């Protein structure tokens, strides 16, 4: 690049200056979620005296663990330009299946496998329908699955709620290790695994490639369909794990469990800066996104603001995040044209 600057002279120096300024802006956008999270925590800490207390922070982490787990899988699906709204009903189905199969008074560690397995099966069906079914609209497919899975949960349970949960699951959802909620720790370990798989393995890079440019991915010979299926399968699996935490927290298996959680999961991913255009985003920012939601809910609650307002605040948050993503695209295009001008001069 230096060589070009010599020849190009003054005008390209100003172009380079503008580009640097745009690059900083781009970097700020990428760091956005953590900046927003810290700002929110500090603001609520100043406004609500008990917000930054060990008890409240423990509570906040434990609450956000379910959304974090859902967000991890949802992120993979959004990464490949899809969306999965069936995850809320997967929570219900996994909880009800475990309660029915193992019985609530006969605690069994087999249950630990059943939750994610139920999710995996639903995820595989989602993926298969979207890839092989030739239905180009993942939203509609998973909306249909949301209804089907919720219905199956009602059928299996006969509409009844079974009270009780196995001790292991109860501990995972409510226990603490060194003061940190066990569920949050488990999700953190899971997030570490996801980070490794996305950033350090061939599968992860291919997933980003498919999200970035599905056509070219196929042209260069990547197994596009199988990659997309794997994203949905894993999304289902994490929804099953979320179901396990949900079961542990509520202590009962209701066929109406998890209603509305799909929205929180998608919100966490989007507020965490992942792009609905596909191919962009990071696991750490998904966690921050989930924590941002939990912080807004808990903070407004501490301030005795009606919970209806937190719905409004989170909704505005989604719209803001989407606009910021459009802005990011715009900045990238600007950087590209400035660079092209610099080279051609």
């Amino acid at each position, binding site marked *: *690049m230096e*060589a070009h600057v010599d020849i190009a002279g003054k005008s390209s120096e100003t172009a380079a200056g503008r580009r640097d300024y745009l690059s900083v802006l781009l970097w700020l956008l990428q760091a956005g979620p953590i900046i927003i999270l810290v700002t929110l925590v500090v603001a609520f800490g100043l406004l609500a005296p008990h917000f930054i207390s060990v008890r409240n922070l423990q509570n906040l982490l434990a609450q956000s663990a379910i959304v974090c787990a859902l967000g991890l899988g949802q992120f993979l699906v959004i990464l490949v330009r899809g969306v999965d709204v069936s995850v809320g009903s997967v929570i219900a189905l996994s909880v009800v299946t475990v309660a029915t199969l193992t019985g609530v008074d006969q605690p069994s560690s087999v249950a630990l496998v059943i939750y994610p397995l139920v999710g995996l099966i639903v995820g595989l069906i989602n993926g298969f329908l979207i890839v092989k079914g030739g239905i180009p609209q993942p939203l509609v497919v998973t909306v249909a699955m949301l209804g089907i899975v919720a219905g199956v949960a009602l059928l299996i349970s006969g509409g009844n709620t079974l009270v009780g949960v196995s001790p292991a699951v109860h501990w995972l959802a409510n226990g603490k290790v060194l003061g940190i909620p066990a569920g949050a720790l488990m999700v953190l370990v899971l997030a570490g695994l996801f980070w490794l*798989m996305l950033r*350090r*393995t*061939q*599968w992860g*890079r*291919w997933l*980003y*490639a498919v*999200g*970035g*440019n599905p*056509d*070219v*991915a*196929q*042209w*260069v*010979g*990547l197994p596009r369909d199988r990659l997309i299926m794997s994203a949905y399968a894993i999304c289902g699996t994490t929804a099953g794990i979320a179901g396990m935490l949900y079961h542990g927290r509520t202590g009962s298996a209701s066929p109406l469990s998890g209603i509305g959680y799909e929205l929180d999961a998608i919100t966490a991913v989007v507020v965490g800066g992942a792009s609905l255009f596909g*191919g*962009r985003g990071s696991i750490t920012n998904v966690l921050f996104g989930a924590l941002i939601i939990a912080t807004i809910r808990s903070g407004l609650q501490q301030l005795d603001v009606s919970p209806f307002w937190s719905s409004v605040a989170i909704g505005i948050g989604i719209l803001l995040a989407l606009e910021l993503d459009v802005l990011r695209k715009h900045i*990238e295009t600007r*950087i*590209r044209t400035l*660079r*092209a001008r*610099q*080279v*051609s001069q």
Partner: protein
Amino acid sequence: MSVASPDSISNVASAARLALSVRDARKAYGFVTALAGASLDLHEGEIVALLGDNGAGKSTLIKAITGIVTLDSGDIELDGRPLRLRSPADARASGIETVFQDLAVFDNLTVSDNFLIGREQTWPRWLGPLGLLSAGQEQRQWREHASALSVSHVSPSQEIGLMSGGQRQAVAVARAVAFARRVVILDEPTAALGVRESDEILTMVRRLPERGLSVIIVSHNMDHVVRVADRAVVMRQGRSVGEMTVRQGVQKDLVAMIMGVT
């Protein structure tokens, strides 16, 4: 229909062995006929310019050779053996590499990611795609191959979406050139580029026959065609309608052949 005059048929090329041949390729998209019996011969070490107006079927023919499009009928042979292409991966495995029209790169990946896509080495092997990548090794691989290219000064870890069109195209060309073993196909590789960037790419293409590679290049720029190609094949409405040995000063004849003016 204009047919090549006998003296214009290449004698350099026909002496060499046939690398790739397409016979009577047909492909329809619903009511649109993209290929209506196109044929193409490509000799070893030969650079053939594939010419024709927009919609003539050039990209479709290329996509058939690359395994993206399945022909309705027709035969493709590589080195005298029938080429069975069930997917683009098959074409790559056969040694055919392609630079697709319209900057076929992954904007969200880095330069070396784009360069190696689909060819990453993982460790341990038995984990397959779940094996770990080595960023250091990948960046070294990029540096080794990129020294011949205009992008060699670009950091391999730079995200390609933030680079200029010319730099991105250079990476796409590098990806094809570095790994091709038999045939390199370039679909309008200089369409979006400036003078200097085009120049670098054409120079590189000209050197490919030294490695025993054959080249198909699509271009609308007759000066570029004259600079690199040995022979030109013209398509119109999904058919090959003529061919011509390329020499200095044939630009006008090529244009006439493309337009169908005899």
